């Protein structure tokens, strides 16, 4: 191995360890790792910038602007309270409905944003019913990762895969991943009910108090809501049809965001820009440059060669290896840096003679997204919910979550293995 490759691997491993240890904020660590690759001459600045995937960043920023502006109208609170009323104030039914809303929201907004919207309304509803919010939050974490699996914009790993592989359009993600996400959710819901039904009991009087609520009062700005819903609807149509117009998903999301800001004015723009999670954006920037060091020095190509040697180039073995490896790795590592490393590796397999890469991409997406359910540190959404819950006095313990999340994750990967095998490999 060349000296530069050794440096690149060394920096990558140290940075990865620091990200896992969570001693320093992951954004700072990733950016320093990326900068080291440039400062030490492993990649030059132009190459580093070339490796930053602006489609991923643009898609995230665009959706953050649209969703944060829409949230200002109170519509997400309205939906949650309406669901609680439809459930007749019954906690188990509310738990199921909020999980389903989280799953659908995660598929069409993105799972991190969805949980940020769902956690406050969950606290509000559970406080009124005087039930423990933790079962609701745990099921929402799990639902957010399952729902996020279904679409290109649902979960950061999918955004990255969709951006790196142009043939995998928004519709291709839905066509290939939504069915398995639907099956997994259908299996999970009865398990949620079985696990939590006895832990979330309330009185008839408190159920009545939910039923009597006036959810219409929660819509704080109907005029803004109309604008947001029109733009959100057009943006989703844009995602469904982006390949027809040969537009990238980031162009669609950013067009939606800036049309909305054009309609709503400067004040809304200032607020919307403060809601963009710049730390997440710079985390991605750092990672892309960090991984570019491994790509440019040939480390990724070497790893791909070894993986092919291990499986003998057999598509079934390679797909299942990627699926399970991604799932186990994503359960205990942040799935974003993992996917950032795997994408060039799978691309390299293509240039080494693996002709049909499609099952490998879907295996990576399923493993990385569903694997995130395995532990509390498996995905960004998990960490965000746990952080918010702990701060409010309801800590979700690592082991407490692991006992629920890990078996459910294994179950979903077993389902995915059958799905991938039957759909792509027979």
């Amino acid at each position: 191995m060349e000296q530069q490759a050794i440096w690149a691997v060394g920096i990558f491993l140290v940075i990865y360890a620091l990200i896992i240890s969570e001693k320093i904020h992951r954004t700072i660590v990733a950016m320093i790792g990326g900068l080291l690759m440039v400062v030490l001459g492993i990649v030059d600045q132009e190459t580093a910038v070339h490796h930053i995937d602006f489609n991923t960043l643009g898609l995230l920023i665009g959706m953050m602007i649209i969703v944060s502006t829409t949230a200002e109208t109170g519509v997400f609170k309205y939906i949650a309270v309406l669901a609680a009323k439809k459930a007749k104030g019954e906690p188990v039914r509310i738990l199921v409905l909020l999980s389903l809303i989280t799953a659908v929201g995660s598929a069409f907004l993105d799972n991190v944003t969805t949980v940020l919207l769902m956690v406050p309304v969950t606290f509000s509803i559970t406080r009124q019913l005087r039930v423990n919010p933790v079962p609701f939050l745990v099921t929402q974490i799990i639902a957010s990762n399952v729902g996020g699996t279904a679409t290109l914009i649902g979960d950061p790993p999918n955004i990255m895969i969709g951006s790196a592989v142009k043939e995998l359009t928004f519709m291709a993600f839905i066509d290939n991943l939504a069915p398995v996400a639907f099956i997994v959710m259908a299996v999970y819901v009865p398990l949620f009910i079985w696990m939590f039904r006895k832990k979330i009991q309330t009185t008839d009087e408190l159920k009545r108090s939910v039923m009597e609520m006036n959810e219409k009062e929660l819509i704080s700005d109907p005029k803004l809501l109309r604008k947001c819903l029109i733009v959100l609807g057009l943006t989703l149509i844009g995602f469904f049809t982006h390949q027809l117009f040969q537009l990238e998903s980031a162009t669609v999301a950013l067009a939606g965001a800036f049309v909305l800001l054009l309609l709503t004015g400067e004040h809304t723009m200032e607020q919307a820009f403060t809601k963009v999670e710049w730390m997440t954006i710079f985390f991605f920037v750092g990672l892309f440059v960090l991984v570019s060091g491994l790509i440019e020095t040939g480390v990724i190509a070497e790893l791909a060669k070894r993986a092919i040697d291990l499986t003998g180039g057999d598509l079934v073995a390679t797909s299942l290896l990627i699926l399970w490896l991604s799932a186990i790795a994503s359960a205990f590592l942040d799935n974003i840096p993992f996917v950032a490393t795997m994408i060039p590796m799978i691309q390299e397999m293509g240039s080494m003679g693996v002709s049909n890469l499609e099952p490998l991409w879907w295996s990576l997406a399923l493993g990385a997204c569903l694997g995130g359910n395995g532990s509390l540190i498996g995905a960004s959404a998990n960490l965000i919910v746990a952080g918010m819950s702990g701060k409010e006095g309801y800590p979700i313990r690592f082991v407490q979550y692991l006992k629920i999340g890990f078996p459910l994750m294994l179950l979903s990967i077993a389902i995915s293995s059958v799905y991938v095998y039957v759909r792509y490999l027979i």
Partner: protein
Amino acid sequence: MLRYRFDENVLKLSESANENDVEFRIVLVTDEPFYQAGMKRVQQEFDENRVYTDVLFYHYPGREYKIIVRKDYYVDFILQLMKQRLLQSVEWADE
């Protein structure tokens, strides 16, 4: 403890302790937009901060509100009501 006074021609207010919270029931008797806007601003104040369980608002028909206030935010809540002129006076009193 805090002692407060309100105009009964403007609102009806009752409070009761419930575990670590104090639950308020407020009904705006008057339909003057000034007081409804005031209630909206009180809610906004607590919705916009980064604490999700400090003061929770529940809306009911007939300008009725149930508000669950965490005990450590009791004073903040009362002072916000005062700031929006939903209370007429607030003072410290002996237990």
